[in-house]
């Protein structure tokens, strides 16, 4: 069973996505904060992060600071209320981007297709070894 971490400060969004993902057979963890999320990433086996970025804020740099450390151990889908182009500009290297207004069906299919994709390199594995 694939494990997904939802990082979003909106309780309504967390509850909704949690409910839908569980129904689709994923193991779900939630976090409302980047720092807490980083801790969770170290201790558990997360395959994919749904990360809500808020573009006007500098907060996103916090996860970007964390990311190189964990890079490629998990996949990342950026979610926000901003357009996909804006999200891509803010976080260029994510596996996919999701505009919250685009219904939950789209989200599920994006998650599934990202998880199906094969890793091109095993750098992620190396990272994981180094961390442990």
């Amino acid at each position, binding site marked *: 069973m694939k494990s997904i971490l939802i990082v979003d400060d*909106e*309780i*309504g*969004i967390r509850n909704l996505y949690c409910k*839908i993902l569980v129904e689709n057979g994923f193991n779900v963890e939630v976090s*409302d*904060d980047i720092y807490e999320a980083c801790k969770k990433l170290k201790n558990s086996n997360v395959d994919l992060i749904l990360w809500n970025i808020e573009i006007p804020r500098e*907060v996103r740099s916090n996860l970007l600071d964390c990311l190189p450390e964990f890079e490629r151990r998990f996949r990342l889908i950026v979610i926000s209320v901003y357009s996909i182009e804006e999200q891509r500009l803010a976080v260029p290297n994510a596996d996919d981007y999701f505009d*919250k207004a685009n*219904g939950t069906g789209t989200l599920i299919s994006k998650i599934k297709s990202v998880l199906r994709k094969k890793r091109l390199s095993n750098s992620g594995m190396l990272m994981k070894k180094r961390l442990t």
Partner: protein
Amino acid sequence: MKFNTFKFKISVLYTVILGIILIVYSVILYFSLQFTLYEELDRELLTKSNEMKNVMSSYLDVLGFSQQTLDYTVNRLLSQKGSYPGQEKLIDLENQWIQKVDKYDIREDYIILLNSNSELVAKSPNFPKELLPAFIKKSKKLAVIDPVFGDINFDSKSYRLLTLSFTYQNNQYIIQILTSLKPIIHLLKTRLFHIVISIPLILIFSFFLGGVFVMRTLRPVYEIADTASKITHEDLNARVKIENYDEEMKYLANTFNQMISRLENSFKHIAEFSSQVSHELKTPLAIIKGESEYALKSKNNPREYRKALRINFLESNRMLKTIEDLLLLTRLNYRQQNISFEKTDIKEFMQEIYEQSRILALKKKIFVKMNLPKTSYFVEADKLHLRRLFFNIINNAIKFTPKKGDISIELVQEKKNLLISIADTGVGIMQEDIPRIFERFFHVNRTGQNIEPGNGLGLHIAKSIAVMHNGDIRVKSTFGEGTVFTVVLPIK
């Protein structure tokens, strides 16, 4: 050419002024020339007659006075004819006289000499005979003490006449010299012709030249107009290039450019604002949409429906709250005429706030206390909005203070201001967030606390209300220990 243009009007005005100046100047110049010429002529006539009188006297002195010598002298002087015994003694005098005759063109003039009875003694050979009676008659009327000047026309020509009387050995004689005005009239006519021709030419030239100068002066106005026509709400980038402009035009162009810059900033601000608003409203909508989708999929499950409806209800309430707050902000910032200030007893006012705060804080068992001074203070306030300010702060305090915490309200005077501080024992604000908490749509990072999300407008509204009352809000906070908001209001 358009007649209602600035260019035309300025050119006309300019030309009219120049025309008046030129005409006045030319008239003055013309008459002064005329005066000078006549004066010159009169002086010359006087010199001629005086010379003649003197030479005559000298001749007669040499020859001795008699009717014959007089005739001889006069004829000799006027026509260089006739002879008299001993005339060789006069050679020097005659030579001098002939030089003068040449010098003054005396041969061109008509000269007659009359005696005291107005009888003709002699006349120059060129004198027209038919005029003689008229002249003799005229000379009788003259008061012949001083030289008298006059104008005479005959044969459709104009002449200047000098009548000079003199006495030689108790005999009174009258010399009349008549000189043609033709050269003077010719000169004046030429001058008049030049004036009449040149003034219109100068005016036409200056009209067009003036037009060119006006166009040059007005060039910035055209450029500003061009720039203005390029400006639309989509593109406010155009600016007037300010180069080689006169000070006034530079000022105009600068003012225009500054106005465009201000408009551009306002448009950016509005664009940013609407983007912020849309994104702010997108989150609750995404939740409503997701919950509805989910509920629609779970067939015949009333519990899920109820749950979805409840969430949708809460989220739409949240959206409405955000919209109401935005409308309030618009009123505060742009429609201040709806706001009415009245003299308010702040102690009484705070007492009401305190009572209501206690009720609000009750459900979290937060203890609210208030400390008011004995003195009464008055402020100029819009009560409704001021209440909103305090409740926005107090609601935040309740929200971020854990159960059984404390909130204390205090009122102190500082110079001409009242400081109303609201201190809580809540989670506090991180130091890096403090400068931004009054920004529109700013949300603090609520780590691991189960605090329901606000819309990021509460403190922004509070600050706007404070500013509207000529006051301010200050904030001090220690993360993890609590926050103190201090509302500053000027004392009335």
